[in-house]
């Protein structure tokens, strides 16, 4: 119980650093601008057709797309670039606890901060379409037009019929939120491990490599370089869906009962195991870590 309280105190210490912190303010301001820009396509579409939207639909259509997930997750680098957060006050905390307790505090902070950031993204996209939205748990006319008429494909919004028919808006929103959260947590946990083992520069590099891997491992990319026919494209789709963390985070790249794509629970499991492995790796690495505090010399 005492260790749990210590973990919470260490985590809370990091959150206290948010007060009037320009880096935190810039991260959230940029996230809002990003949400506004990314969801604009869906909002514009609804305005053009004079249709209403469900309040979380802007989030669903925007972050059902892998590139939007990639951009939103990359902004978190700003928030966590200085991991593992070695301010001048840290020696006082460390001398009263254990290395592992301190790292658990950082892990808790990372999880909570990522959750808050994702929540902010969700609320921001909902606010953007607030004027023409309703809160009932049913798909709107906008969704129907986007999904059934094929207009979604024309404006590059991933409003698929399977999305509409397999779930309700809130259920779909919760699934996308969880996928994004897990993807981002995996990215940040890798950054934490690399920061501890190799330093902050390589931590940031690891995030860009991780994102680049997800971005390039995409069936469309294969198609551009190899001119695939529909059969080969199907196989490329399967490979990308299984091997790319970014495709795992994309809602419609899952098996809803009629193909060989990963099922949602499999993705949750894969992300969960990888995140856990990263945290275990960080806990092992912290034993030999040399603490160099900023602002003490």
């Amino acid at each position, binding site marked *: 119980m005492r260790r749990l309280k210590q973990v919470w105190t260490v985590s809370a210490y990091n959150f*206290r650093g948010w007060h009037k912190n320009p880096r935190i303010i810039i991260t959230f301001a940029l996230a809002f601008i990003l949400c506004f820009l990314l969801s604009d396509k869906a909002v514009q579409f609804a305005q053009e057709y004079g249709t209403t939207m469900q309040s979380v639909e802007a989030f669903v259509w925007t972050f059902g797309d892998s590139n939007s997930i990639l951009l939103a997750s990359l902004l978190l680098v700003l928030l966590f670039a200085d991991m593992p957060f070695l*301010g001048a006050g840290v020696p006082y905390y*460390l001398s*009263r606890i*254990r290395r592992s307790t301190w790292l658990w505090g950082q892990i808790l902070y990372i999880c909570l901060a990522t959750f808050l950031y994702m929540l902010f993204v969700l609320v921001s996209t909902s606010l953007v379409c607030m004027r023409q939205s309703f809160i009932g748990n049913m798909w709107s006319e906008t969704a129907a037009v986007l999904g059934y008429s094929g207009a979604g494909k024309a404006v590059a919004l991933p409003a698929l019929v399977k999305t509409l028919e397999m779930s309700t808006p809130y259920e779909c929103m919760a699934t996308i939120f969880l996928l994004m959260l897990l993807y981002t947590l995996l990215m940040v946990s890798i950054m934490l491990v690399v920061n501890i083992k190799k330093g902050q520069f390589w931590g940031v590099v690891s995030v860009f490599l991780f994102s680049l891997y997800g971005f390039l491992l995409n069936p469309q990319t294969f198609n551009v370089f190899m001119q695939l026919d529909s059969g080969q494209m199907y196989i490329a789709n399967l490979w990308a869906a299984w091997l790319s963390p970014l495709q795992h985070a994309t809602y419609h790249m899952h098996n809803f009962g009629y193909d060989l794509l990963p099922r949602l629970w499999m993705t949750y499991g894969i992300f969960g195991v990888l995140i856990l492995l990263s945290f275990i790796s960080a806990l092992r690495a912290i034993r030999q870590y040399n603490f160099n*505090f900023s602002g003490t*010399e």
Partner: protein
Amino acid sequence: MNIAISVQHVYKDFKGEQVLKDVHHDFEEGKIHGIVGNNGSGKTVLMKCICGFLHPTSGKIFVGYKQVGKDMDFPEDLGLIIETPGFLPTVSGMKNLQILASLQHKIDDDAIRGTIRRVGLDPAMKKPVGKYSLGMRQRLGIAQAIMENPSLLILDEPLNGLDKSGVWDMRELIKELRAQGKTIILASHNQLDIDELCDTVCEMDAGLLTVVRA
């Protein structure tokens, strides 16, 4: 002679540069041990190694009978100041110390108030630490180091930023702590502090530790 800290053939490299070179010394219990040396001579690195924040490239450090980094992460029963004290700038000094004290639950609020008064600050002061002068922050740093009554104190430039009366007060406090049987390692640039306070003096020069006064 009881040994509080035993530093055994410690080397420390940073990216190929040797910062500590075969540092070998025993620090006796209940005394004030001064470490002098120029900037960059390796004083702070040695102190960080003793505190367990840095792992020696080779060699061992024992505090009591336990090896730092092997038998324990950081020395138990340790109070420290590593140069500029870092506190949460948006809350009061009392609140800062309450947060730190909550990690171990060894002392209550009355003990914290007593320690803050002992270093010449007012525990009822609501001013956030961000608005403290350097001297006030230094006093608060000393308060956090001693508040849990540790048997070992590692003080790196503890009198930095203090005015004349502050320096006098803190010297008296450090002498008082020695009288209570605490082991203190003190790094300072000020020769007067070293001469007046320390029972033994070592000098660090380019990573080498030599005994000046035993």
